[in-house]
């Protein structure tokens, strides 16, 4: 751009651009600003990573090292911290609980969300708009308002005959259902938009080939929606894995706690028992799944989460 500009032909015959002329954006002053800006970026990078890095380093220390030299590097690798966290502090149980609940809730969210969104996006029936807006409304309601009555809904469902044991408080299945309910508004919203963009010619071809409504959905439309399902699945995975307040209400029994909740209790108790490094080992155990998911799917995670705002 700087070299292709056309100088107006004036009385002077000198029409080429003077190399020594001040070029905006490239000079000593600009370089100083660049340096300063680079410094800020680096500083924020450090502010972002250091607390987490510190937590990871601390998980390998002895408690003595942690207290006397919190900033230093560990003398050796105390794998025992992880064993204590996993067994004595019950993190293993909490981890298992989280895996059970999240695998149930994620499967149901994606399946039911896709089913609802598909029907809302591609079928015309009375009440379609109404149900769609009903889901959309859930996007703006704060979780907190529902917290108290939700506790009673779950408790009361627990007293139903036979199925009550799966639907009451302290049940993996009912916590998963609660996660599903709270994830549906965004899931339905996002996938409805996605299913609308799929070409109808493919659906028509399927019908000509004799697909039923069911096979059309499971064999044709769902596979085509894969990119959207992956972004949304990651979004929901992180949301469910990191959930804190919903399990606090539903899982009151100590052994049924999920990871984030269990860590909270552990942190509250650690002050008395002074086993800081086991706490940090617990943190690292909780951090690992999200760290792995984030590193593997970094682009999709960012896309999924930012799509959540630009709805």
């Amino acid at each position, binding site marked *: *751009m700087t070299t292709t*500009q056309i100088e107006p032909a004036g009385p002077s015959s000198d029409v080429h651009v003077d190399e020594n002329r001040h070029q*905006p*954006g*490239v000079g000593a002053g600009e370089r100083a600003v*660049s340096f300063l*800006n680079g410094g800020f*970026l680096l500083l*924020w990078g450090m502010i*972002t*990573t250091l*607390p*987490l890095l*510190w*937590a990871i380093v*601390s998980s390998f220390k002895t408690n003595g090292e942690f*207290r006397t030299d*919190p*900033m230093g590097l560990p003398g050796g690798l105390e794998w025992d911290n992880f064993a204590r966290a996993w067994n004595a502090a019950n993190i293993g149980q909490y981890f298992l609980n989280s895996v059970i609940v999240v695998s149930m809730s994620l499967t*149901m969210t994606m399946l039911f969300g896709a089913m*609802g969104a*598909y*029907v809302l996006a591609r*079928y015309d*029936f009375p009440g379609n708009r109404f149900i769609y807006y009903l889901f959309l409304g859930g996007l703006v*309601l*704060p979780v*907190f*308002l*529902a*917290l*108290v*009555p939700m506790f009673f*809904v779950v408790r009361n*469902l627990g007293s139903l005959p036979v199925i009550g044991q799966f639907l009451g408080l302290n049940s993996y299945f009912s916590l998963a259902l609660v996660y*599903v*309910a709270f994830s*549906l*508004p965004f899931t339905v919203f996002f996938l409805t938009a996605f299913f609308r963009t799929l070409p109808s010619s493919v659906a028509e071809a399927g019908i000509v080939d004799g697909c039923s*409504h*069911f096979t059309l*959905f499971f064999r044709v439309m769902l596979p085509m929606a894969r990119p959207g399902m992956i972004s949304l699945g990651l979004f929901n995975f992180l949301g469910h894995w*990191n959930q*804190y*307040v919903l399990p606090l209400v539903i899982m009151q029994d100590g052994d049924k706690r999920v990871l*984030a*909740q269990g*860590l*909270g209790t552990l*942190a*509250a108790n650690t002050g008395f028992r002074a086993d800081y490094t086991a706490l940090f080992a617990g943190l690292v155990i*909780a*951090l690992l799944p*999200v760290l792995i998911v*984030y590193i593997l799917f970094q682009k999709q995670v*960012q896309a999924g*989460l*930012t799509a959540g*705002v*630009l709805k």
Partner: protein
Amino acid sequence: MRHGKYPFILAFLLPPVGIYAIYMLSPYIQALYISMTDWSGLSASQTFIGFDNYVEMWHDDQLRTALRNNAILVLVVPILTLMLGLFFASMLNVGGRRRGAAVTGVRGSSIYQVVYFFPLVVSAPIIGIVFSYVFAPENAGGILNRMLGAVGLDSLQRLWLAEQSMLIWIVVVVMTWSFVGFYVVLFSAAMQSIPKDIYEAALLDGANRFTTFRKVTVPLVWDTVQVGWVYMAIQAMDAFATVHIMLGINGGVEGAGDVLGVMMYREAFASNDFGYAAAIGVLMLVLTMAVAMLFMRGLKRERVELA
């Protein structure tokens, strides 16, 4: 195709709508009623008391503290986050200056975007726990005090989590820390869609970086800023996990760091006053809506169209 359409629609809608209605819609509707009762949650007796809970809130000093703290969070966290997010995003996308290519990101942009975003995928309890040790006393691993001591700023050392006036500001810092990366990524996406020749034109006109930022970048990403701002205000209203983990269920020393969410949880599950808790929940709903609307209005501006 017409054959079996309605049974199919019904079969596909029943699970999502059923779960949604039972676990989400019905609690919201019940909450409005419970907020007008004196229900303890333990007994079956539930008397309708009209707006008494709301009157009680009016006279509740602790609620006033919580409201003040929520106000601080809703005003300060979004402003800090937006400023930092816009600054970093513009650095990363249009901050670089090199001969030949006038507008690029600074070196290492892609790495920064990955690193900055990371706090967002870490759960709030983990962030809360880590930071409660950052701000802890020196003999309990408090690295902030340790660092201040190391650079000779001993006078700034203090028992951060024991000082009432500090509590909510610590929450502000922690929340801002965890939000910024998200807005860097969000604004980056918006900035990447701005045509580069606008920047080149501005550069040729001799605009410096700050002017370019103010007159070109910000107006062109303003739509995104507006959406992000509202979203963030709603998020900042919550603060439950951070406060609950860092300061405890009573909101820290003398309840000075209390927020509405924690107060509601405490009234419901520790004090067994479900009616009052539901009323706090309704208050939160009203405030969230009000804040969202105010923020949307306050930021409305002439839309800048790219010709």
